[in-house]
Each structure stands twice: as C-alpha cells, then as structure tokens.
C-alpha cells in the first residue's frame, strides 16, 4: 500500500452536490463524495485553498502583510495574528493575483502556451503534463527520447528552483556572500538553458509528440554537473554557518500525511510522484528518493540539497540514453476525445492535472498544484513561531503564488 492511501490529493468540483475526489498519491482515480463528508478535513481544505484559521481574543493583534510588499516576490496577502512577537495563527489570502487563467475552450496549441504561463518557473512540468495527457488520449506511445528530453528539462528546472529556494533562505539569514553566489549560480543555469533551449524558462519548447524547437542535449550533463559541483562547494560553507542553521532549524515544523514534495520527505514520508509511471517514467533512471527527518525548514533544505545532486545524476543517465528527439508537428488533429489525469513531481511536490478533451479542444481542465499543499503546510507550521521565522518558514517551502489561482 502506498503511503497516505486515504489522503485527499485532488478535489474536482464538477458542479452539483458533492465533489469528485482523488485519494492517495498513486495513479489518479476519482470518486464521487458527498460534500459534508470531507469538508472539515485538513487535506480537503488544503486542496481547495481554504484557510479559515484565525485567532480571536482581546488584544490579539492582527496585522496584514502584503499583498504587495518588497519582501514578497509575488503578490499574496497574509493575515498574521500575533501576541507581540509570536505568531498565533496565520491566514493566507492568495486570491489577489488570481488571474483566472482560461485554458478550457482553447485549442491544444494555445492551451499549451497558456499552461506554460501558468507558472513560468515550472513551465516544463505543466506543459509536459499537458502534452503527455494529450499524447496519451491520442493513444500514441510516448517516444522514449522525448521522455528523456522532458526528464532532462524537468530536472534542470528542479535544480534551478531548489537553488532559488536555498538562496532565498540565505538571503533571509543575511548570508550575503552565499546568497549572491547562489543567485549567480542560478543565473548561470538559466543561461545554460537559454543556450540549449532558446528560452530561459523553456517557453515554447514542449509540444505534442515532440519538441517544437530542436534542442541541444549534447554535453548538457557535464555543464549541469559543473554547476551542481559549485553548488556543493557553496553549500558546504553554508551548512557550517551557525547563523544560517540556527535560523532554519526547528522553524515551521509540521508533520502531516497530506504533505507533498520536500516537505513530506523532510518528515520521513517516502513519497515522490517520479516513482509512479503515470506520465514520465523514471524507472530506468535509477531514482533515489531523498528522505530526511525533523520536518522543519532545515530538513526540507537538506532534502533539496540532496535532490540537486540526484537531479544531476538523473540528467547524466538520461543524456547517456538519449538519441534523436522528435520535432513536434503542427497539431491540427480535431478528433481527440477523452479524459485523463496525470501527476508530476514538481520541485514543490506532487501536482495533479486532470484534462477532458473534446474534438481537439480542452473542454475541462483542473490542476491541483503542490503550492496549495505547501501554503497549507506554511499556515499550520508557522504557528507558535516568532515573526522573524516567517521568512524562513515561507521561503523554505518554495511556494509559487501564480500556481495557486488554478486554471479555468
């Protein structure tokens, strides 16, 4: 049995009474459930982005942070309830920058471009998921080289995102040398991506049945390896900094069955969507899942550090196996019908996508991004922490606000 078999991992509101709910972290399947049965559950609330926790009482100071402030890269508002320095509870309001991104009703090509812009830094994951879903509905066997190409793009993206998270933590702890070096490293990686794929964020590269542009995979793993080696050098120094470790150790500790990604693995749970073959097989890439204990920001960071090296290894293996990546043709096929759910391990954790296709048009689409779970983790875990821990709790989870709005 999989870990967290009865955990709600997706809630699809198909209209009418009740929800269609996906349980567990395996291959997604949907069950119809009456609303009252699940609405009070934490995992349900996390999936639908419901944060109703608030501390009341005489003299509780509620102050708001955001939606637009210099301390946040993306717009989100936090209602922080405190007594002096300690956070009693926290209620995020991510709806401010909800773009109501319209994907359903568009053709496949436009849907693909829009999905890329659903969350720019994670675009290969989501465009890859959509492409895989469509390919699978079309009944085409996934091309092995295309799979490896997507694995490489995803893993590079993962390294970039993880470095960014650790850089933000170092920034918060005023480890300025480390943070500048890490940001430079990420820039180096983005330039590498731009050289080989034509775009720093992989926009316009993923297509249906192939890549839209030809990409250069030759020697990519050694370049990535050089960057990861440099990262290890920086990390060795960073992990020896008492100042840095003190800030993240014991910060935002939480252990829940519904957690995903590094947050879950940092609490000792052995889950990773890459172990499933639901859309991208990693079985021949000898994936090693990093586990840590402690369930705090430090543990999450250690998992990310491990995963950076692991991703570099996966890229090496994938590059050694890749031959000729097919180029995507123009998708004009109109007889594509069906419904499918796919799952991917984004840097923040398990993300779920459910697509209904009708006559080559996206009829319905649902995404449950990992950031929803991670924001809930943050909201629960930051309680009883000090206000100064806010940055470390928040940045340590690598939340992308743009994901939270979902798609229509």
């Amino acid at each position: 049995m999989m870990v967290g078999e009865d955990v709600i991992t997706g809630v699809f509101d198909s209209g009418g009474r009740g929800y269609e709910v996906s349980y567990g972290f395996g291959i997604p399947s949907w069950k119809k459930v009456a609303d009252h049965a699940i609405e009070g559950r934490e995992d349900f609330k996390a999936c639908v982005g419901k944060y109703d926790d608030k501390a009341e009482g005489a003299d509780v100071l509620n102050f708001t942070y955001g939606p637009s402030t210099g301390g946040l890269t993306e717009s989100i508002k936090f209602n922080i309830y405190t007594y002096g320095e300690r956070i009693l509870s926290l209620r995020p309001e991510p709806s401010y920058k909800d773009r109501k991104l319209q994907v359903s009703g568009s053709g496949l090509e436009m849907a693909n471009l829009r999905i890329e812009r659903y969350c720019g830094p994670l675009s290969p994951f989501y465009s890859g998921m959509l492409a895989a879903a469509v390919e699978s509905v079309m009944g085409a066997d996934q091309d092995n080289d295309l799979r490896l190409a997507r694995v490489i793009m995803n893993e590079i993206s993962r390294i970039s995102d993880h470095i960014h998270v650790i850089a933000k933590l170092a920034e918060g702890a005023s480890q300025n040398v480390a943070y500048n070096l890490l940001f430079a490293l990420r820039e180096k990686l983005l330039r590498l991506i731009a050289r080989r794929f034509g775009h720093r964020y992989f926009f316009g590269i993923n297509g249906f049945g192939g890549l839209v542009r030809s990409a250069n995979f030759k020697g990519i793993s050694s370049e990535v390896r050089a960057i990861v080696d440099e990262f290890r050098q920086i990390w060795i120094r960073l992990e020896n900094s008492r100042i840095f470790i003190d800030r993240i150790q014991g910060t935002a500790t939480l252990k829940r069955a519904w957690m995903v990604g590094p947050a879950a693995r940092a609490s000792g749970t052995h889950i990773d969507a890459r172990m499933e073959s639901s859309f991208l097989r990693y079985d021949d890439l000898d994936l090693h899942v990093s586990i840590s204990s402690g369930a705090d920001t430090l543990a999450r960071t250690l998992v990310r550090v491990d995963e950076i090296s692991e991703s570099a290894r996966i890229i090496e293996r994938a590059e050694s196996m890749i031959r000729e990546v097919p180029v995507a043709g123009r998708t004009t096929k109109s007889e594509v019908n069906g419904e499918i759910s796919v799952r991917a391990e984004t840097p923040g954790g398990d993300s779920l996508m459910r697509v209904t296709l009708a006559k080559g048009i996206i009829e319905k689409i649902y995404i449950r991004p990992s950031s929803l779970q991670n924001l809930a983790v943050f909201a629960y875990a930051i309680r009883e922490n000090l206000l100064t821990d806010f940055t470390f709790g928040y940045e340590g989870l690598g939340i992308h606000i743009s994901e939270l709005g979902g798609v229509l």
Partner: protein
Amino acid sequence: MKTWLTYGLFSKRLTTKFPFKAAEELPVWTTMPVSTGAGEAICPANAIQDTSVDMGMCISCGYCSPAFEPDGNARTSIVHSTEKAFRKSFHIYLFDAGSCGSCNLEVKALVNPYYDMSRLGISFCATPKHADALIVVGVLAEGMGEPLRRAVEALPSPRLVFAVGACAISGGIIGKSISGVVETDVIVPGCPPNPFTILDALQRSRGGKH
C-alpha cells in the same frame, strides 16, 4: 576548508560591463523577431502583421521561426518619457499585478552578481512610498487593480511607471493589460524580457549612459 573570503577572492569576476559594452549572452527568444522571408509565419499572439512585429504583444514563443528569427538585440524597450533626476540614484519597486512568476524573477535577477544593478545606483525598495519607479509585471488580475492604483498614488513625483513583459503591456495571451489602470512611461517587451533588456530600459529611462 576555504572561507567565504578566499572563496570570493579565487572566483572570477562575473559582473557584466553592460550597458557600456554589449551584452555577453542574450537568450535569443526575448529579442525582436525579424522577417527572414522564409515561408509564412504563425503567431499565436497575433503580434505579426505582414513583416512587422508588435513587440508589446510578442510572447517569445518562437512559433514564427523560421519565417522570423530573433535579432539578438537587447534594446527592445520603448521609453516614452525620461526623468533625469534619477541619474545618480534610482529606487525601483517591483509590483506583481498577476504574473506567472518569471518576470518577477527576471527583474529580481538584476541584483545578482552577473547584472549587479547597484553598480549603476539602482536599488530595490520595500514600499512604493520610497520608490522612483514602479516596475509592473503580469496581467491585471482582478484583485490587483486596486493595489496597483494605490501603488501609483503612493509614488512620489517625479515618477516613472514601467510595464515589464508582454502581459503587463498588452495582456499577452492570458489576460488584460495594466493600461486600464495606469499610464505607462516605459514598456519593456518580452516574455519574460531578459535582465539585459530590463537594465537597458532602466538606464534609458533616467537619461543615463547607454
């Protein structure tokens, strides 16, 4: 083990000489696509009219290739008005009106050692109250209209408003532009515009050397 100091001393200089010298390495698909005359161009964003490209609408997807190919020139921004008062020090505030997150990161990348905008006297500030310019990224999300209006109101004058990225300029392919709420002084096209382009726009908007 080497200390941070020795680590830094033995690392080589990363910082660009841009804008005094040409950009070292531009990602091709953020620059202006120009017609090559090879076949018919497809443009999902409807930015292409015959042989000209409206950069405000271009989403850098590259679907027009090979009929159009990027020209590799960092200067795609259009500066409507400049403000010389910001020549010595220039404080900018990043405002996310509803982006995918990549424009934010590209603007924030200006502080990393490769671009290091502080060498030009440009720095981020934590509130529009202290800012000289508002850097708006993303489409206009419903909930961000009011904050955007307030942010512009909070800007002391003289001031500049930048629309950075196709979304902010034209709404791109995913939403509304910010033009309904604020008047923009500088537009920086691209999806997302690369840091060199943003830096170039910042420099030109203050009438600086370029």
